[in-house]
């Protein structure tokens, strides 16, 4: 029998890998991989605001605050890039970078308004695979279910608008709407998983495995599958190594995932 914390960590790695494979691959296809970091930091501002509001006597869950800000960032980025789609000035990552700066400045502003417990804000960025509670896992499970459902329903639309937004528009596809749905789903997935296992692991697991898979795999389906397998192996290796050596499992998993990506570029 495995100790419960280890069971929870393994289960979390499986859930992270599903999220990373779906949400991560869509951000890679959409050329918006910076959204992962952007949404994570936007969530900080939301979390800080939630605590400010809480101190004023209204209870808003910190995670909910984070989610709202992250989704707002995703939609702002989608709007800004949509504006440039036809005039050839589309630049999603710049829009995300500016939203990133905006939300970080808001986060600092809100944190300075918090009288105590500001550490709870930063707590959203910090997590550990071995310190997960069952309620963390439940949330991660809910987010996984949400991401899987959205992907099953909309994957064709997501693919078409990522592959060729211009033609999609010409054939009457509501490109804006699907773009918002796709980017918001990624933001939700990022924030929920980050709340459980911390920012570093999310950055590494949502981008590196999908980017590696997209370089190697020959079909769309195999990009999703390969990115799941890479995430899973990195996560499990992280747990295994940290069990035997005094390292954080998340940091090891992130290290392996990023190294795999650079290795794939080198080999290709």
């Amino acid at each position, binding site marked *: 029998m495995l100790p419960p914390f280890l069971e929870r960590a393994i289960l979390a790695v499986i859930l992270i890998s599903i999220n990373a494979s779906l949400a991560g691959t869509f951000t890679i*296809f959409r*050329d918006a991989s910076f959204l992962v970091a952007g949404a994570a930091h936007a969530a900080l501002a939301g979390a800080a605001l939630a605590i400010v509001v809480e101190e004023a006597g209204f209870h808003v869950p910190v995670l909910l605050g984070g989610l709202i800000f992250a989704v707002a960032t995703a939609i702002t980025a989608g709007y800004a890039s949509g*504006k440039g789609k*036809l*005039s050839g000035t589309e630049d999603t990552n710049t829009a995300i970078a500016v939203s990133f700066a905006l939300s970080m400045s808001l986060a600092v502003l809100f944190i300075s308004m918090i009288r105590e417990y500001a550490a709870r804000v930063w707590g959203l960025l910090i997590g550990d695979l071995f310190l997960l509670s069952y309620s963390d896992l439940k949330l991660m499970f809910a987010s996984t279910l949400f991401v899987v459902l959205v992907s*099953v*329903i*909309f*994957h*064709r*639309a997501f*693919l*078409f608008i*990522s*592959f*060729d937004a*211009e*033609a*999609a*528009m*010409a*054939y*009457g*596809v509501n490109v804006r709407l699907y773009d918002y749905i796709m980017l918001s789903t990624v933001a939700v997935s990022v924030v929920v998983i980050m709340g459980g296992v911390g920012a570093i692991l999310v950055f590494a697991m949502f981008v590196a495995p999908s980017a590696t898979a*997209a370089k190697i*795999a*020959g*079909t*769309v389906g*195999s*990009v999703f599958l390969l990115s799941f397998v890479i995430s899973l192996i990195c996560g499990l290796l992280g747990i295994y190594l940290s069990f035997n050596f005094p390292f954080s499992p998340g940091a090891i998993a992130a290290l392996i995932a990023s190294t795999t990506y650079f290795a794939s570029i080198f080999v290709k």
Partner: protein
Amino acid sequence: MTGKKKMVEAKNLTCAYNGHTAIENVNIDVFRGEFIAIMGPNGSGKTTLLRAIAGMIKPVRGEVRVYGSVSYMPQKEHVNASIPIRVWDVVSMSILARNKKFILSFSLSKEEKKAVEEALNAVNMLELKDFPFTSLSGGQQQRVMLARALATKPDVLLLDEPFNGVDLPTQEKIISLLSKLSEKGITVITVVHNVSPLIHSISRIALLNKNLIAYGKPEDVLTPENTLKAYGVSIPVSVCEEGYLHPLFGDIHG
């Protein structure tokens, strides 16, 4: 060659992006089965005119009407060619979008499958239907995108620079395919940088530089005055054995 039925009609068409006028007061009629070319220097609004006909952008002033179904093939450079989508799935996209089968995983009906197959066959790409788009050459990618536009069996086919990155034999094949389509009654409107290879096949040229400088038969459009107005230099023409005027673009890119 041309039936009498009007398929596309633009009246005083003016379009802008974020406040910058791209085309102004364009008046154009295109009839059933016509094969026309839109030419002009870079930034002259060629793509904008196509997009307005496709209904992708709303005119600021004036109007554009299309009497039939439209297919649009964007420039290859606008496609994210790093996604390893299968050729078959690229071609299916237009049909799925047109038939609103985008939500969930609807599979193609028998007729839809047949349409995809026919379209791929028309551009000689059926054999590569299971290959990822990413693994194809530039010319093959263009042919797949043309197949995607053909798959919906449009009345009006709009093409943006379909010969970019296409080798000469393929270019000839595409031109002869487009000619055949226009003979069958499909209206073909294509934006081109260099109209020369098309001269034998097209009925009219629209010369654009924000305004429509000239619209008519190639010999009436390709006059020194018109090309000077459009490109800032007059473009020399040579007459081929069959009596067609061929503009010699050389290094002139507008």
